């Protein structure tokens, strides 16, 4: 049970890292998770498991991480502060480490109003930055909030999210610096379609010396159709899809749009690989895990280091 994070090892070696995303099912079926695991195995370094994303009730991230682990993958446990207070969060951090989960991504989470439980009480006892700091203190100081000592510290590679496309842009570097100061080892970004804005954000991070202190993994999501692109642009918060991308998707014939989406995705990765300060890519192929291998292959990211 003492294995370390594979993601961490890859990044330490200076290899351009590849992570993917696995959304747990809206049910108790373990097969749904293990099937996705098999699609991803060998093509990525680690797999994020979302935590009731868009505030829709799904199998717990921790349980799905455990299933991925038993399939030989390195899971990244996503945890949102929306649903648990500091007692539950710290307890789950200990539990995650105990069952061999070695990566955690600390998030605020989509607001409960977006999901299928809009009447839920949003907890937000901690915010995502405080949560990063709490996990860091647990790991490095073996202490929980309030100073009580742990009998054994959790072993976790700590991640946080960043949205280069949210406002105000000028403050995004400050917030990134706060996440790093709190203890983030790696950052996974919101899906990048607007490379120009992503570049600006990255430049600010570089200018502040942040890219040397944290491993930034650029997020990508292959578009399945122009409809999906339009939907994401207008309905998904924090998303920035330039009109040029929509036009390009629209220009492809209906039966070729998936290919076009993959092409855009691969091109984005290739460009990100050239950008100073980007240490890897996070491929979020939503309910389309089978495409991850193709994308990684086309972007020259395979084979993954053993």
């Amino acid at each position, binding site marked *: 049970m003492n294995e370390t994070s594979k993601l961490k090892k890859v990044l330490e070696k200076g290899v351009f890292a590849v992570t993917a995303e696995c959304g747990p099912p809206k049910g108790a079926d373990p097969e749904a998770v293990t099937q996705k695991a098999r699609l991803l195995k060998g093509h990525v370094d680690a797999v994020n498991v979302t935590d009731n994303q868009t505030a829709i009730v799904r199998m717990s991230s921790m349980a799905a991480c455990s299933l991925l682990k038993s399939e030989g993958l390195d899971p990244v446990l996503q945890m949102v502060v929306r649903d648990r207070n500091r007692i539950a969060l710290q307890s789950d951090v200990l539990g995650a480490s105990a069952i061999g989960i070695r990566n955690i991504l600390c998030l605020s989470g989509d*607001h409960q109003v977006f999901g299928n439980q809009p009447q839920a009480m*949003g907890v937000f006892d*901690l915010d995502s930055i405080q949560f990063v700091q709490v996990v860091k203190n647990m790991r490095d100081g073996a202490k929980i909030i309030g100073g009580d000592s742990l009998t054994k510290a959790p072993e976790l590679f700590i991640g946080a999210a*960043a*949205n280069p496309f949210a*406002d105000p842009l000028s403050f995004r570097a400050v917030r990134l610096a706060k996440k790093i*100061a709190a203890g983030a080892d790696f950052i996974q970004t919101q899906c990048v379609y607007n490379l120009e804005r992503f570049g600006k954000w990255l430049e600010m991070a570089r200018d502040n010396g942040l890219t040397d202190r944290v491993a930034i993994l650029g997020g990508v999501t292959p578009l399945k159709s122009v409809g999906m692109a339009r939907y994401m642009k207008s309905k998904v*918060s924090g998303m920035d899809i330039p009109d040029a991308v929509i036009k390009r998707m629209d220009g492809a014939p209906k039966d070729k749009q998936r290919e076009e989406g993959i092409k855009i995705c691969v091109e984005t990765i290739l460009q990100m690989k050239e950008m100073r300060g980007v240490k890897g890519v996070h491929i979020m192929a939503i309910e389309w895990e089978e495409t991850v291998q193709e994308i990684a292959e086309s972007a020259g990211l395979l084979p993954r280091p053993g």
Partner: protein
Amino acid sequence: MITAEQKPIDEIREMINPYKRILAVGCGSCVAECAAGGQKETAMLASALRMAARMNHEDVTIDEKTLDRQCVRDFVIQLDDVIQNYDALLSLACGAGVQAVAEMFPEIPVIPALNTEFLGETRDQGLWIESCQGCGDCMLYFFGGICPISRCSKQLLNGPCGGSKNGVCEVDPEVPCAWQMIIDRLARFNALGRLEMIYPPKDWAKKQGKGPRKIIREDQQS
């Protein structure tokens, strides 16, 4: 101020249904300011309830009286002279007022006519905005006078989150992003540096640590 809105008449009628002699009690403070339970609103509600009773052939008396404050015993005591005429009180106060009246007159049912909403301000005529959670540990100084606990949908102390776009909150385009406001305001005072520190987890014990809170001031006691 504490804001409130009147409950639907049907809900009120259901609650007062068992009673024949009802006193509708208005409150002249916060809920008068937010046009939910002042003298005027009490008169309107009582009038509507009397009409409704007549239309349904119910033999019910509904009188009205508005106190300056229902949450202060010195004012509630004014009900002493009239209370024996009634078998229920319909209170148009906030939740605090309803309970203060009920506490003072344990022998008579006190029915709430309002839904208490939030601590806020009158931004404009007919517009009230939530701005305080009564957390017991005011942090407005750090955030340029804008409370992220009340006005950020995720209560972030280290915001803004990734859902802030064009100055509005992802939760509702009608809601301004509190963090955009905080940043703009602190920038005006050259105080953006205040946001570089990581604000630690909030001490919620000051709000709910020992159950319901109370304030004791010996210098104010008789």
